């Protein structure tokens, strides 16, 4: 499949919008939008694999993004040696015991023939396993969290380059998706939706509460970067010399250089994924996927293992989300568990996919960038609009105060309206599936 001139025009429009921001406002803002737009495009690609290729309804995107974010901490932060000494191995042992209890329970359920003994055995294994796990886990965690809580209080990470965290984030998300998919796929589509909604809330709860892992609401900041720091650039004589030669201010130039470096990295990942996604979609595998989506019963009758294929694509799509989550946290430079809000990190991604064109990878990318741009710009536009409307009202008038105060909430309203309008009048999106 190639892009039609119309599609190219749509992409150009988005770039023109971002460029206009650069010219009118500032290139820092424009590049900021571009970078997050590229990451959003990757998120949309992941969701599009699940929804567009296979018709799977995942509303736990936020959880998979957060797992990617967690991976940046685990991989790139330097280890907190005292914490590891205090209880690192004990925590890991406790987690292994906990996992073993669950595996034992599953095995027991499968091995013991159905009868009176099975359910009590299952419950007994789980209860004993839980208490043993807590008995091992709690003191270890207390020991770790007691280690300089103001600075650390967690285990830290492996101290590896942050780029390693990107594929690891994908793996973490894939693992979680496998567990969810194994239980909820093959049931009604709404059940998968509720299950994914649940798992994403739980993942966020873990990030917020397991201080030994992610420092919880104390946040993890200072995640290493894959690109240079502004301050190093400003202190580098060669850099200052070169940008001054072009007549730029070194401070602005350094921030823009950093953003451009991120943009380059993100673009490379996006293009690679897009290429892979296109190849997959047009392969026999992709055709089979769509055949299953369009008629599950017929595909099943032809001997396709629908549930296994669904699991495959569900895991793949979630992995892409995990990757995007890791990239996003890398860009932010810090993990802030309380910033994960479902409307922003799950439902907005859905708006991107639907508006862009579900089933079309280019559509997902376009939707990701366009909707991100709108998400950023609607707020100042809304404030300006309300400012205009209320200009005639006297200062201190309650309605004016109220409107100005709540103008920032225009975003959700606008996104919802866009979603509803697209669904109603152009359900195939800006770049429809072909």
């Amino acid at each position, binding site marked *: 499949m190639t892009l039609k001139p119309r599609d190219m025009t749509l992409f150009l429009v988005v770039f023109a919008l971002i460029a206009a921001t650069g010219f009118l406002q500032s290139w820092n803002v424009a590049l900021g939008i571009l970078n997050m737009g590229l990451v959003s495009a990757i998120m949309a690609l992941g969701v599009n694999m699940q929804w567009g290729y296979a018709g799977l309804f995942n509303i736990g995107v936020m959880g998979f993004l957060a797992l990617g974010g967690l991976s940046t901490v685990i991989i790139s932060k330097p280890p907190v040696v005292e914490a590891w000494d205090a209880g690192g191995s004990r925590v890991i042992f406790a987690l292994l015991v906990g996992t073993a209890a669950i595996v034992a329970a599953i095995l027991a359920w499968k091995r013991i023939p159905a009868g009176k003994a099975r359910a009590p055995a299952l419950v007994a294994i789980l209860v004993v396993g839980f208490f043993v796990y807590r008995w091992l886990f709690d003191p270890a965690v207390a020991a770790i969290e007691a280690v300089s809580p103001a600075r650390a209080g967690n285990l830290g990470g492996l101290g590896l380059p942050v780029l390693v965290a990107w594929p690891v984030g994908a793996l973490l998300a894939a693992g979680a998706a496998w567990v969810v998919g194994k239980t909820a796929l093959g049931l009604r589509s709404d*059940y998968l939706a*509720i299950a994914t909604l649940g798992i994403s809330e739980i993942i966020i709860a873990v990030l917020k509460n*397991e201080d030994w892992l992610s420092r919880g609401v104390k946040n993890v900041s200072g995640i290493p970067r894959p690109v240079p720091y502004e301050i190093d650039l400003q202190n580098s004589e060669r850099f200052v010399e070169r940008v001054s030669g072009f007549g730029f201010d070194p401070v602005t130039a350094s921030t823009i250089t950093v953003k451009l470096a991120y943009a380059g990295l993100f673009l490379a990942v996006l293009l690679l994924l897009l290429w892979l996604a296109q190849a997959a979609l047009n392969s026999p595998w992709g055709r089979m996927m769509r055949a299953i989506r369009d008629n599950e019963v017929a595909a099943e009758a032809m001997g396709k293992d629908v549930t296994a294929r669904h699991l495959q694509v569900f895991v793949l799509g979630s992995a892409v989300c995990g990757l995007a989550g890791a990239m996003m946290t890398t860009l932010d430079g810090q993990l802030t568990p309380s910033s994960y809000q479902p409307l922003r990190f799950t439902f907005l991604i859905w708006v991107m996919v639907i508006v862009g064109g579900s089933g079309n990878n280019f559509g997902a990318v376009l939707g990701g960038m366009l909707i991100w741009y709108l998400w950023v710009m609607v707020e100042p536009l809304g404030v300006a609009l309300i400012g205009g409307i209320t200009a005639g009202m006297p200062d201190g008038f309650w309605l004016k105060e109220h409107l100005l105060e709540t103008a920032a909430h225009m975003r959700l309203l606008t996104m919802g309206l866009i979603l509803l309008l697209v669904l109603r009048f152009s359900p195939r999106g800006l770049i429809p599936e072909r």
Partner: protein
Amino acid sequence: MLVATRAPFGVASGSCWFGFHLSRQEGSLDLLNAIVAFANFVMLPAVAYGSQLALGALGVTMIYGILRFSNFAHGDTMAFGAMATILGTWWLQAMGVSLGPFPTALLALPAGIAATAVLVLITDRLVYRFYREQKSAPVILVIVSMGVMFVTNGLVRFVIGVDEQRFADGARFIITAREFKELTGLKEGLAIKSTAMLTVVVAIIVVALLFWFLNRTRTGKSMRAFSDNEDLALLSGINPERVVMMTWIMVAALATIAGVLYGLDKSFKPFNYFQLLLPIFASAIVGGLGNPIGAIAGGFVIAFSEVTITYAFKKVAGYLIPAWEPQGLVQLLSTDYKFAVSFAILIVVLLFRPTGLFRGKAL
């Protein structure tokens, strides 16, 4: 999960005082104290929360049974209904109206229901009806409901903001812990919050009315018939648009009442209502989607599990086994993981009994 270790001191329970010459009578008092503590911290909150979940789940299950999709906007419909009622309450309070010991919100409730009914009927007319006529797949309607959720959420934030609002007035307690202690001479107090009691009483009335309507009236029966077999309902001359309209009005009433009771009992914060979506859906699915009795049972199953599993049993354990001084709080899961409880129950039901405890529709 870790709270157990965060409060490492072992509070001396009665055991220190009584030592081992604990008399038989004091032993039975300990049992009574344990029961009262359990009732105060687990039973009462769970009953109130369960009633709120049940009312929410009834709305979800009715939409599912008659309009045949999972309405993800339901949490925000509840928020809208509560908001409309709060605005009415504020107006009444400003006018100096009060219900004495009862919260003024009860007076504003009918107006809140009416406003919410208007909202959902307009939404149905502008949004859902089109897809109904197209006979779209349920999953499309779910996505559409996502859009409606965005808009409703934005509307609520636009009108009332994102901050917490308190609107409960009237008596705080039917009986306070101190009064209870003085009354019974027990060491543990049983505080009955008037909002909790109100929640239960209103929920019982609403559910009774709902079941009377569904089982005894012509319109109610036609709604059940439509839910059971749409084609045959059409052949019998049942007007589908009328059934849909009645459903939305009833859902608006259920959502508003659930939202207001939840807001009175806890507090009103728009985002909390979105977060109720998971336990509400878990309740409806656990009970069997499309089955009203199941929705109620599911609500209580989820509420009791959530409260019991996240309650710190230290105090209760201290009374029951005086010799044991627990190291921590004796809590299975920290309250931050209450979602995990609904989720786990949901998964277990999906794995072992996908149609739910009361056999809903498995479309």
